[in-house]
Every structure is written in C-alpha cells, then in structure tokens.
C-alpha cells in the first residue's frame, strides 16, 4: 500500500515537473510549483518525516508561492522564448542526471536499518533521549539540544537571507532617490 501511494505521488511529481517546464505563463508555473511542494510534503508524510513535511508545506507551498507571486507582480508574468538553442543546457542536464543516477549505485538500499546514516550519531541521540525520558519527538531534541550549534547556524542563515533581501529591495530605492537628488543638487 505504501509503495503504491509513493508510486502515485512520484508519478504526479514527474507530471507536474514536465508541466512546469512546458508552461510559458509564469503565474501557472508558480501555482504548479506550489502543487509540487504539496506533493513533496505528502511524500515526506508517507516516509514518516512529519516535521519535514510540515516545513515543506508551509515554506515551499505557502511562503515561497506568495513571494514568487509578489515577484511576478514586479516583473510581469510571461516567459519569452529563449534566443539561444537548448543544446548546451540539455547536455549539462543530461550529464548531471547520469552522474546522479550513477551515484545512487553506491548508496545503501532504501530503508536499510544498518545503513551508515543510522549507525553514526543517531543511536547515541536516541539512547540519550530515552535515558533522560525526554519528550517523544526526538527531532526537536536533536535540532534544539543535541545539535544546538547547527540550529544557531541555520537561524543565522535565515537572518542573513532576510537582511540580504531587505538590502536588495529596500536599499536600492533609497539610493536611486538620493542619486536623483544629488544630480539635481549639482545641476
């Protein structure tokens, strides 16, 4: 049953991706990207990664869609056909895809219990969590406690991203205004 649901979701993901590539109306592309994120969130739920699913649904399908729509409002919603041929991008994509698929040969089988990722630090987190009778969602304990430095770094990344957007979108307008005033002053 789980593999059937996974199959349906992954097929829909592929269909949405093809639709995004073929779509020229950018408004449609943004909505399709939102649908893609919701499908991805469903895949995460099937994989029992509810925390990731929640983040994907709220950030990927929610905030990203709003910000992209706001960007469309500024730029216009029609994609013009490219003047160049698609040969070079197609070649780069094909090589990357082959490299990625070739790389999956080295990965442990999906869902294997003694894969390296499950044997590195994860057992000690689970042991510590059980030993001290910590609350059941180990994800929160790992993020905010065992790996507190990483989450501090992630929060700083969000801060940096926000400051970057504010500098790009707000700072420029002020500079344009002051630039005009400067010219007028000189004239």
């Amino acid at each position, binding site marked *: 049953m789980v593999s059937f649901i996974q199959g349906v979701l992954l097929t829909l993901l592929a269909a949405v991706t093809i639709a995004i590539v073929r779509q020229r109306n950018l408004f449609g592309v943004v909505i399709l990207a939102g649908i893609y994120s919701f499908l991805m969130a469903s895949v995460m739920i099937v994989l029992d990664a509810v*925390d990731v699913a*929640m*983040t994907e649904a709220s950030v990927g399908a929610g905030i990203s869609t709003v910000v992209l729509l706001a960007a469309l409002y*500024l730029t216009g919603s029609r994609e013009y056909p490219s003047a160049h041929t698609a040969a070079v991008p197609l070649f780069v994509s094909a090589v990357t895809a082959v490299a990625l698929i070739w790389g999956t040969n080295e990965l442990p089988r999906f869902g294997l219990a003694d894969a390296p990722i499950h044997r590195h630090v994860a057992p000690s987190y689970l042991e510590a969590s059980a030993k001290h009778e910590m609350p059941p969602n180990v994800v929160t304990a790992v993020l*905010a*406690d065992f790996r507190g430095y990483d989450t501090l770094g992630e929060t700083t990344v*969000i*801060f940096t991203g926000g400051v970057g957007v504010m500098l790009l979108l707000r700072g420029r307008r002020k500079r344009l205004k002051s630039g005009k005033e400067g010219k007028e002053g000189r004239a």
Partner: protein
Amino acid sequence: MKLDLILRVGAKLMLPFILIFAPYVHFHGDYGPGGGFQAGVIIAAAFILYAIIFGLDAARHIAPQGLVERLVPLGVLIYAAAGLPAMLTGQGRYLDYGIFGHDFLHAHEWGILIVETGVITTVASTMLAIFYAFADRGRQ
C-alpha cells in the same frame, strides 16, 4: 480586493485559528511535529493573509515595518544569548542547558524553549520583512 465580501469574511474566520495554531505548533514541538521554525512561518502566513485581503497599510498598522525589521536580529541574539549563562558561570560549555533547571529534563525543556523562541522570532519577522520588501516595491 478590499470589497470582496467572501474573501474578507473567510479570512476573518481563518485568522484566529491560524494564530492559535502557531503557538500550539511552537509549544507542542516536543510532543508532535513542528517547532519554532514551522510556528514562525505560520505566524508570518497569518499576517501575509491579512495584508493580502485587507491591504498593506492595515497590516503595517498591526505589525509596523520598523518593529518587524528589528525582530529579525533579536531572534538570533536570543538564541546566541541562551548559550552564555552556562559558559559565563563556568558550569558548562556554550549552549549547555544544564543551568536552566535543577534536573536534566526540566533544564533541557527550558533550554529548548528559549532557543526555539529565538528561532520563531527570527523566522516570523524575516518572512514578514521579505513580504513587506516585495510589496513595497510593487507600489511605486
């Protein structure tokens, strides 16, 4: 859009539930899915919905842009400051939570809560500040 009755009433019905759901996700993160990051995004989504339906000026009246932009670094500072007590009193290393309570569980729950408060502050204000920045540009 300001005259669209169905959207206005629909948004007004949904907003209180969104605003209650956010602290639930924040404080219940130890037991269910979610935490500061997801809760911050949900809070920002509530304000963005309000801004889309009732206009940017109405949203700015509730959440002033200057305040939102000051909260962005404040969250990082809350998180970074949570590590200092243990280090300064010499009871542990940076971001050790042992100092926040008498037994292990109590101390670590408080530590996680303080840290997540920093995360929720930065995430919610950053998302809202980005939206304000985009919406501002579109108006001129």
